[in-house]
């Protein structure tokens, strides 16, 4: 009874804007105290999490992403894809999708995509005579597109929390990520033809110039992925190489960013890292208690008695995760839900890596779902438009994304093809 009361109070304070880590820690500390377990158990979990070897990848990739977003890289990325895709019908919308996806993979779905690229792409789409509602819907839902491509932060966090191999999860996300981008592109092309937006011509000179300009950034995905899958270095080492490479290119070679600006970029990126790590630590403290108290077992027996088929279980799981992604936000949903749901899903014979992709696809879509999806609010601030207009603008794109979700959920091959 008093546990319910504490939960209710914490829930109200969470809705009033209390930091998520405070709410989670509060609940964990209360449960530990009432089970008469030493409170330092909470800190043991936080410390264990913070010194996991793979965790080094998070500050390094995040820092590299921030440096990229403050440099001229977003502009060069847009110019490059414009040169190569601009001549297609609906070319500009495909450019927007591809650049947002690439950028989100590198900066880790932390809200930077809409902030860094939205300001370039929205005016470009307006000049290209796309209706504003269409452009805003596309850019808002693209804020988390690309989350399934390595080395995005949520993939790494899922791997840590669910204890699956990060390199396998990286591989698993590639095909489902491509499906998301392809279907959205197909929809955009259809709309562009319908809107009769003017088409550009392919110019070889511009393509070469754009290639030259982005020559230093193009090898970046190879550095990240090639190194990991050739077995030369671990994910955390790839992160160090990425950070060093980005510094070399943007600070030393291209001089987009001065040495004096670096401490400020470091500070900004580490504020984000600290905010994420402390939620991760608090959530592990909480779930450690919950696992000890056999809560996942109880959830499982509750579900098993009511849902027999894995197909139905996946429907319920998807609805539940979409709601979690929309309301709790990606990082808190990941850290709290994964340890509780992973053992349950395993009992329904769902592959742990496939489950990871289902989780992340849901949270990616949830971030754009009204009324609380975070992308809607970031866009509303970035584009200075009322949130209600964005709700409407996003609906057609959410419909396409949900179709992708169904495909990804019920066609495990997509996620597991590269693992064999």
């Amino acid at each position, binding site marked *: 009874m008093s546990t319910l009361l504490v939960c209710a109070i914490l829930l109200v304070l969470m809705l009033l804007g209390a930091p998520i880590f405070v709410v989670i820690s509060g609940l964990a500390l209360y449960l530990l105290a009432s089970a008469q377990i030493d409170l330092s158990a909470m800190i043991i979990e936080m410390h264990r999490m913070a010194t996991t070897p793979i965790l080094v990848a998070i*500050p390094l990739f995040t820092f590299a992403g921030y440096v990229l977003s403050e440099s001229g890289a977003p502009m060069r990325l847009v110019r490059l894809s414009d040169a190569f895709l601009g001549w297609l019908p609906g070319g500009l919308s495909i450019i927007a999708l591809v650049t947002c996806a690439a950028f989100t993979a590198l900066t880790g779905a932390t809200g930077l995509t809409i902030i860094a690229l939205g300001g370039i792409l929205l005016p470009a789409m307006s000049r290209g005579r796309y209706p504003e509602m269409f452009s805003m819907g596309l850019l808002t839902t693209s804020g988390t597109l690309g989350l399934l491509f390595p080395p995005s932060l949520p993939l790494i966090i899922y791997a840590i929390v669910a204890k699956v191999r990060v390199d396998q999860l990286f591989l698993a996300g590639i095909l489902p990520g491509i499906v998301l981008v392809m279907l959205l592109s197909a929809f955009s092309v259809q709309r562009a033809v319908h809107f009769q937006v003017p088409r550009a011509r392919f110019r070889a000179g511009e393509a070469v110039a754009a290639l030259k300009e982005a020559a230093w950034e193009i090898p970046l995905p190879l550095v990240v992925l090639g190194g990991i899958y050739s077995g030369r270095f671990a994910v955390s080492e790839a992160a160090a190489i990425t950070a060093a490479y980005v510094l070399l290119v943007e600070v030393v070679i291209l001089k987009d960013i001065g040495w004096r600006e670096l401490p400020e970029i470091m500070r900004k990126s580490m504020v984000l890292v600290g905010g994420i790590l402390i939620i991760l630590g608090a959530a592990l403290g909480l779930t450690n208690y919950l696992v000890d108290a056999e809560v996942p077992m109880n959830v499982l027996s509750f579900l098993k008695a009511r849902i027999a088929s894995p197909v139905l279980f996946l429907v319920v799981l998807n609805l539940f995760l979409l709601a979690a992604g929309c309301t709790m936000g990606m990082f808190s949903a990941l850290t709290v839900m994964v340890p509780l749901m992973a053992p349950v899903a395993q009992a329904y014979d769902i592959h742990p890596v496939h489950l990871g992709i289902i989780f992340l696809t849901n949270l990616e879509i949830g971030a754009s779902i009204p009324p609380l999806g975070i992308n809607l609010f970031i866009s509303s601030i970035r584009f200075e438009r009322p949130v209600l207009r964005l709700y409407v603008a996003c609906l057609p794109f959410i419909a396409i994304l949900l179709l992708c979700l169904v495909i990804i959920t019920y066609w495990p091959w997509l996620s597991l093809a590269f693992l064999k």
Partner: protein
Amino acid sequence: MRERLHRWDEAIARCEKALVAVMLSLMIVLALLQVLLRNAFATGISWGDPLVRNLVLWVGFIGATMATKEGKHINLDVVSRWIGEGRLWLVRALVHFLSVGICAILAYAALLFVANEARSGAVTFLDVPMWVPELVIPVTFGLMTLRFGLAFLEALALRGSSESPDRRPGVA
């Protein structure tokens, strides 16, 4: 009083920024060096990896106190959008009050943890006792307690004034 607290807070923030910059740079250099040594010479620095892990611990927790100072902790902040300006101070005060309490308990739990570790006598890189780098946990939770306390005082000071606290967008 609040003036002086603010000045101290700013001074601490400058130290944090410098520490984070130095540690992150060291992290990149060390991790890179390890890759080079391993691939080129099939060797490595034995204390390198544990040191890098401890740097992540420090950078993470210092990042969290900086997030506290800047009001950048990940939160939901849904209801306050629909709360009138006049009542906002009360909501802020309530939320910060809870945060002060929880962070104080976490700081206490962290002290217990460090004391246990000190008794165990375990060592990490270069024979440094484990509990030394772990001190960052109680220290940063202590700082977070103070900073939420400062934010609480500020929310109270806003009572009755028409000036509204700024509404920062959350990240992620």
